[in-house]
């Protein structure tokens, strides 16, 4: 255990803070992610990459900064951006999920072709996993791709493709070997979204917004080399991507940011001059959550260390998604209660409405349930934790119900 800052760490911290102070006017609003990055976002991203505050550990040959892994450095940078409220750069599915997957199992050519444009925000990816009939049971995917003259020809339907309406590319899980057993018949393809035969229809959720899409494939042709690993390896690759998705979904920095925002709300005087933080029953509720968020943060530091040292955290990693999404929902539950009836006003359609903290908390209160369900529902997570994490036996197989 060594969390003391070396001279170099102190220098980095000062440097990041100075960077933020000097350039914060050039930064876009934090958040976003529901639209294609605009020029301001792209320029900011380029500046962050060049300064080593984004993609810090990604090798230079793939467009990153190429610094060696250092947990404290990563924590220092995240902390400085979080406290200042300045955008830490783009976080989308391509960056958080596809890039680490390619770095882990992609070919040299795939890494050179895709990592750079993706982390620069130029190539936007969406995820083609879930289907109407297979939500939790991803490996039951029916979308099929038959080989014809050097091309995969894709037919089928995906749902929950979150940025399909403006994405350039999709990483797609589909069935290429229909004669093989369920898990062995899948492949992981990289599909340009402008390929003829792809139709994207917006999917409205309980929040009132259309954060997701249905995506339909009719004879969509992609060259056979647009595959990660080999034919029939799709389930393996998809699980690597899911691993990164689940870490993203349980993100401790997000929990910390939320907690701080709620604390600030409770510290603000209400119309009658009193503060909710002075009411012991409310304060205790906040404190309980603070304790849980702290545990999540320190746990995250432990995982980052494991990652830097090339150690698989095992159980410690497997719990993150379930733990983080449930805790996030409990945080937003407190937030909406703090807002009381004043938080109910809600106009989700307008761009401006998203700046209203009350509206945002209520969107999050619902969206969090989507995150509990998405990326492997809580029950799926508990299966994984129990079976892979604790070594408990699987549910016995039964015949078709």
């Amino acid at each position, binding site marked *: 255990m060594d969390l003391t800052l070396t001279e170099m760490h102190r220098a980095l911290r000062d440097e990041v803070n100075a960077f933020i102070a000097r350039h914060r006017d050039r930064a876009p609003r934090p958040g976003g992610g529901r639209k294609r990055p605009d020029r301001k976002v792209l320029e900011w991203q380029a500046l962050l990459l060049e300064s080593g505050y984004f993609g810090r550990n990604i090798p230079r040959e793939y467009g990153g900064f190429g610094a060696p892994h250092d947990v404290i450095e990563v924590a220092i940078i995240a902390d400085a951006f979080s406290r200042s409220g300045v955008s830490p750069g783009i976080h989308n599915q391509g960056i958080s999920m596809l890039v680490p997957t390619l770095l882990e199992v992609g070919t040299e050519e795939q890494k050179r072709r895709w990592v750079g444009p993706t982390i620069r925000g130029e190539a936007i990816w969406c995820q083609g996993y879930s289907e109407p009939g297979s939500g939790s049971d991803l490996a039951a995917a029916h979308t099929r791709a038959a080989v014809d003259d050097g091309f995969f020809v894709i037919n089928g339907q995906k749902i929950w493709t979150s940025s399909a309406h403006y994405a350039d590319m999709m990483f797609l899980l589909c069935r290429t070997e229909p004669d093989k057993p369920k898990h062995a018949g899948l492949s992981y393809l990289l599909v340009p979204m402008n390929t003829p035969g792809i139709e994207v229809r917006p999917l409205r959720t309980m929040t009132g917004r259309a954060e997701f899409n249905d995506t339909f494939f009719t004879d969509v042709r992609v060259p056979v080399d647009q595959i990660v690993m080999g034919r029939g390896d799709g389930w393996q690759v998809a699980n690597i991507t899911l691993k990164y998705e689940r870490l993203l979904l349980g993100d401790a920095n997000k929990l910390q940011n939320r907690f701080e925002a709620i604390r600030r709300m409770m510290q603000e005087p209400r119309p009658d001059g009193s503060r909710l933080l002075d009411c012991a029953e409310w304060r205790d509720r906040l404190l309980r959550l603070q304790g849980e968020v702290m545990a999540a943060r320190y746990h995250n530091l432990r995982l980052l260390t494991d990652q830097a040292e090339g150690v698989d955290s095992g159980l410690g990693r497997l719990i993150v998604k379930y733990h983080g999404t449930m805790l996030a929902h409990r945080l937003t539950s407190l937030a909406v*209660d703090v807002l009381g009836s004043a938080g109910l*006003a809600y106009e989700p359609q307008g761009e401006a409405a998203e700046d209203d903290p009350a509206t945002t908390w*209520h969107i999050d209160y619902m969206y969090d349930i989507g995150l509990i369900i998405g990326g492997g529902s809580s029950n799926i997570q508990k299966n994984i934790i129990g079976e892979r994490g604790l070594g408990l036996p699987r549910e016995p197989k039964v015949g078709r119900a």
Partner: protein
Amino acid sequence: MRFGLTEDQKLFDHSLRGFLSARLPLDVLRRLAEPGNGFDAGLWKGLGELGLQAMLVPEEYGGAGLGLLDAALVAEALGFHAAPTPFAASQVMALRAFQAAADDVQRRIWIPRIAAGEMRIGVGLGGMSGQTGRAALRFQGGRLSGAVDGLLDGGGATHFLVYLADGRAALLDADATGITATVRRSVDRTRPLVDLDLAETPAVELLEASNAPLQVAARVRDAGRVMLAADMLGAAQAMLDRAVAYAKERVQFGRVIGSFQGVKYMCADMATMLEPCRAMVWYAAYAQDAILEEAAIAANHAKAHLAEVTREVARLATEVHGGMGFTDLLGLHFQFKRITFDRQVLGTSERCRHDAAVAQGWIGA
């Protein structure tokens, strides 16, 4: 002598639910909810024909003279179907305010009009309810100025009943001079919140015939809290019923998902939490009329407890539906948001529990 519904109550409940079920299929609910003002003239008329607007009104004023337990059954059914119509404030709280604090003349004028369905009354309790938002009113020379936020049942209202800090209540005509009513569409599209700005608005009536106006206001508030508890019960029951039905149908991993203990236990947990809530709502409603010494305690605990339980049920029922539960498609979210709305108005759980402690004399007001 017995704790349960009478045959009459069961029959009435049955016909009301039949009506709502036929009248509010999902596509109609979507259409009615879109404007978000919580009022539809056709639905209002139909509910009037079923007797909803006159049910609590004493027979001498042309009503059915029923009790708050009957009203709770209505609120539960409205919550179950997420019906976009005024009721809890307009037909229950406002009527109770008239009964307890209006003088004879006022009663004779207004109560028959309530019974006839001619009035829809948005009610604002301001700070007394524990709601957030503005609540600063001046009453002088028969006129009201200032602002009060978050009136209930204020969409499509013909009148507003607003409480002053001293517990008296002023009845305003919705079309009166100096009145600006902002109907705020809420998370729950089936019921809005209304903010009133008042500039020298003339009051139609002032309800001040009670010797203990603050106590009367608290009783009106408690009746409202019971109605919201019943509404949450209905909405959560609808979500549970649908989750169970979905779990019996949906197949994953080659099995109906309800046969997995993971899903089965979520349903069992919801049922275990929710089932005792029904008796609690009944008791709290009944107590408002018949067991006055327990009325405040029961009402406040019902609101707080239902809010806690139904929040869990709302989440779990959505989870059982998986991704589909999170979409707009199934319309499950109407009940989800109904629960959210009920929890956040007329005081959050912490506030209601505080009021229950006060009602038991554990602490000062």
